[in-house]
């Protein structure tokens, strides 16, 4: 393990202690539980947006709590769901009467706990709706979209639903837009190295130096193809084709592109990937509105990347362009042309 940590058992809580110390004006916790993160800034009457999930994926999930994005996040252990109780506490803290929308990734443990939290919230008289993001085309074939894992594309759901909620849209309206994002976003990943859960202390799967696994998930879920590591351009070709075919993305479409580093892959390489994505989309007459290139959903120190495409319409584009200000993501108003 090459990790700067103390006792692995305290890893998540110490990370959170650092987080609250660093961003007191942005984040706080409720119910005396470090793992129930809520935004320090509240807006009366706004629909509350909550997410949650395991640790080890920063900026996911808590990193997007803040102005123009989410209101709260429950935090699990490394790669573990938070509890329904923690979700409920966050829900209670962020509801200001307009109801709460849960937005989270499609993983069994998370789904069940959010379902349970929604039932508990219902008993407390809080209206809760749910949107489950699942856009990893490697994780299930077309036709079985409901089985797909949620990965980096959830960033777009947060960003767009967050901007809409910020405009004081109703719970039903925010849910509609969040579902529209889910319906129009597709991702594919590639892993070049494994990662290590601190409490386990050794990698839970193996990728040898000089090899890659296309389609691997951010917890090391098996991908669709293992092979020797190819040049970046052909890796992009292999990743982009199934994305394009799936929706499908077509000539004349306008998209936003997200090139996401999984942890150990330098930004330089992400730009090399983007270069090729840009070439291909140009050839196909697909217009790129605003690319995001960096780390948006990681897997600790895993080497690798994912490519996400979001098909835009005027509504999604307008909302994507709005400003946001969270500890891990700051955007000024983008020019919309």
């Amino acid at each position, binding site marked *: 393990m090459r990790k700067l940590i103390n006792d692995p058992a305290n890893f998540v809580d110490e990370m959170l202690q650092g987080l609250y110390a660093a961003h007191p004006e942005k984040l706080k916790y409720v119910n005396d539980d470090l793992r129930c993160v809520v935004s320090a800034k509240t807006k009366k009457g706004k629909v509350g947006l909550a997410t949650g999930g395991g640790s080890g994926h920063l900026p996911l999930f808590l990193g997007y709590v803040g102005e123009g994005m989410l209101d709260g996040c429950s935090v699990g252990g490394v790669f573990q*769901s938070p509890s329904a109780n923690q979700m409920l506490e966050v829900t209670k803290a962020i509801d200001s009467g307009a109801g709460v929308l849960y937005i989270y990734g499609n993983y*069994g*443990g998370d789904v069940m706990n959010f379902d*349970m939290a929604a039932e508990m919230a219902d008993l407390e008289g809080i209206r809760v709706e749910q949107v489950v993001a699942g856009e990893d085309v490697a994780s299930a074939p077309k036709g079985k979209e409901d089985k797909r894992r949620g990965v980096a594309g959830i960033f777009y759901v947060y960003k767009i639903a967050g901007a809409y909620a910020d405009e004081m849209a109703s719970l039903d309206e925010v849910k509609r837009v969040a579902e529209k994002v889910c319906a129009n976003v597709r991702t594919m990943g590639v892993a070049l190295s494994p990662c290590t859960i601190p409490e386990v202390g050794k990698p839970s799967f193996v990728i040898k130096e000089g090899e890659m696994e296309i389609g691997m*998930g951010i*917890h090391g879920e098996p991908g669709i193809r293992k092979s020797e590591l190819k040049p970046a351009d052909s890796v992009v070709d292999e990743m982009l084709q199934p994305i394009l075919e799936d929706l499908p993305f077509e000539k004349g479409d306008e998209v936003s592109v997200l090139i996401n580093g999984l942890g150990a892959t330098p930004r330089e390489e992400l730009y090399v990937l983007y270069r090729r994505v840009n070439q291909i989309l140009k050839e196909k007459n697909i217009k790129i509105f605003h690319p995001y290139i960096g780390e948006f959903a990681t897997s600790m120190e895993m080497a690798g990347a994912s490519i996400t495409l979001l098909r835009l319409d005027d509504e999604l584009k307008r909302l994507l362009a709005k400003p946001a200000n969270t500890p891990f993501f700051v955007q000024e108003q983008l020019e919309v042309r």
Partner: protein
Amino acid sequence: MNTLRAKEIKQIFNALADLMSEKKEWLIELDGIMGDGDLGLTMSTGFIKASEGLKDFEEQDVGKLFAKAGMIFAQSVPSTMGTLMATGLMKGGKAIQGKQEVYLSDMAQMLNEFVEGIMARGKAKPGDKTIIDSLYPAVQALKSAAEEQKSLKEGLTLAYQAAVQGVEETKNMISKHGRAAYYQEKSLGKQDPGATVGMLFIKAFTDYVAV
């Protein structure tokens, strides 16, 4: 012994804590093959906390004891199995709420709601290679035994045999839920860890009554 009361239920939860601790490494190993290997930890922790939580809980209502154990699971082990166990215990408890003494027929009703709760929560059905595949046959066995007016001991023994059989049959199934589902055909031939937990759950009741 043909009925179970609060005191016995608490002792069974103690036995469950011991049993899950004893089987910890085995469950870790089973879950490690196509999952994250936490099952031994979550189940031993969950049942230890539940048995501790029940110890000082002055409640004669057996239904409320099960529900309480479920709440403890929900708070302490939010893994898939922890959450399903929480749901099952809460729903099962609710089904027999108000009873201070439970008979075989109550046990059948409790466990029936337990499994129904798990199916509603996890959206899985028999044959999907989950905990349901040991619990569901056990429920059917309990129900028949109750109809046939068998003793608690006989009924639970039949339920346990059905659960053991159910675990065995998961080897012929393909995982449809949770982390193991990503492995698809590769899950063939392997025994489902969650079904194993279901079988152990029944075993603790059976062993208790058998003594």
